[in-house]
């Protein structure tokens, strides 16, 4: 991993990141099914499909690999970057750049912490590492979700996490394109716009579910 050139590292990160971006889209779709007032039928069906289908199983591995790759490289790259400037400026940088682009590591770490919680709460239960809360079956994601979001604190944490993910993605999507060399004067503005719109969609989309559950209580 250390031996990869700087560009290779970034390219792998970008590929993994952009893959995660598409995954987020699928995840969001399933989440939004919660909003359908059918007592979680459709949502559970989708969750079951995702949990049992063999193709999805393979994808799951890819997904984990993607997370791992992205996170490990993210951390590695960030440390290397820090090492590239051992002495800081006395007068901080005031160049005109997008503000959040400098905090990818920080937003990434916040997302990471959330991911760990998220895993404990759902995935670990599913695979049986962690025992489900009393009264809920280990594959019953619907009620599990309702339970979690009934706590305003959890919901707040969830929403804040997605706010940071949104911030991460706002820079990340166009950055990923640039890293892969997909920068063209004709399309770059569109890419930037779509990237921002998409990250907004992710933040808003994922936040709707807890808000809906909180408000409909």
């Amino acid at each position, binding site marked *: 991993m250390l031996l990869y050139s700087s560009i290779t590292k970034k390219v792998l990160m970008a590929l993994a990141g952009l893959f995660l971006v598409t995954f987020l889209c699928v995840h969001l779709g399933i989440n939004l099914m919660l909003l359908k007032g059918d007592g979680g039928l459709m949502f559970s069906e989708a969750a079951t499909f995702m949990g049992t289908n063999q193709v999805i199983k393979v994808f799951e591995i890819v997904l984990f690999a993607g997370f791992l790759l992205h996170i490990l490289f993210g951390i590695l790259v960030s440390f290397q*970057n820090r090492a590239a400037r051992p002495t800081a400026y006395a007068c901080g940088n005031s160049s005109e750049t997008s503000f959040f682009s400098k905090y990818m590591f920080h937003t990434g770490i916040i997302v990471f912490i959330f991911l760990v919680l998220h895993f404990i709460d759902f995935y670990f239960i599913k695979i049986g590492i962690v025992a489900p809360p009393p009264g809920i079956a280990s594959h019953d994601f619907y009620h599990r979700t309702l339970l979690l979001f009934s706590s305003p604190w959890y919901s707040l944490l969830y929403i804040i996490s997605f706010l940071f993910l949104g911030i991460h993605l706002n820079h990340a999507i166009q950055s990923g394109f640039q890293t892969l060399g997909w920068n063209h004067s004709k399309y770059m503005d569109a890419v930037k716009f779509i990237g921002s719109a998409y990250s907004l969609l992710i933040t808003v989309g994922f936040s709707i579910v807890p808000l809906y559950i909180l408000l409909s209580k």
Partner: protein
Amino acid sequence: MNLTLKIWRQKSATAEGQMVSYDVSGISADSSFFEMLDTLNQKLIMSGGDPVSFDHDCREGICGTCSLYINGRPHGPEKGVTTCQLHMRSFKDGDTIHIEPWRARAFPVISDLIVDRSAFDKIIQAGGYVSVNTGGVPDANTIPVPKEKSDEAFDAATCIGCGACVAACSNAAAMLFIGAKVSHLALLPQGQVEAAKRVQQMVACMDELGFGNCSNTYACEAECPKGISVSNIARMNREFLSAKLFAEKEKIIQDSL
């Protein structure tokens, strides 16, 4: 104009440095930033002090020697100019101006505001040229080059090697500098022949020298005095990827004697 200057002073590469405050007065708004520093230095020399060392040569924005980090920005507050082209009319009477050297692991400080940028030479030596010998080349008009390509190559080729991109980058990355050279040559038929080899060697050299990775914050483009576009970085990434994926493996053939 009267100004307060806070300047990084460091006697030699190994000495400790610190920010030191100076006052200058009676500066004309029409004089250049360096003429202002000249005035300070004359004052320091006459009063038995040690003048501030800074790199400069052409004083017209083309040689790329000058390298000051002024108030948190390489080459100061104006867009698209070098430090030597900066004029005092860009500041206000009574301002405090912070002046620091470029900061990067690959650019160690030599003295005060002077840094060693020979890392850039090494990167060019790693392949930033077309391998043609003096003599034996075809007539200049043998290969037509589309004007658009040629103009784009020229835009990339106007890099002056100042290092402001590295200084501005939060990761001290040199991607804009290298992207500019890789693009300049990759855009021209003359440079395409060895494009795959060039980009790989230059990137490897860049990594070895301890520059950071690119986070695409685009601070480099914002501070580049020649307005080199980050699309050159994308082009380099493209060139690099396709070289890694598709370029023929180099065969080492022993010359029979």
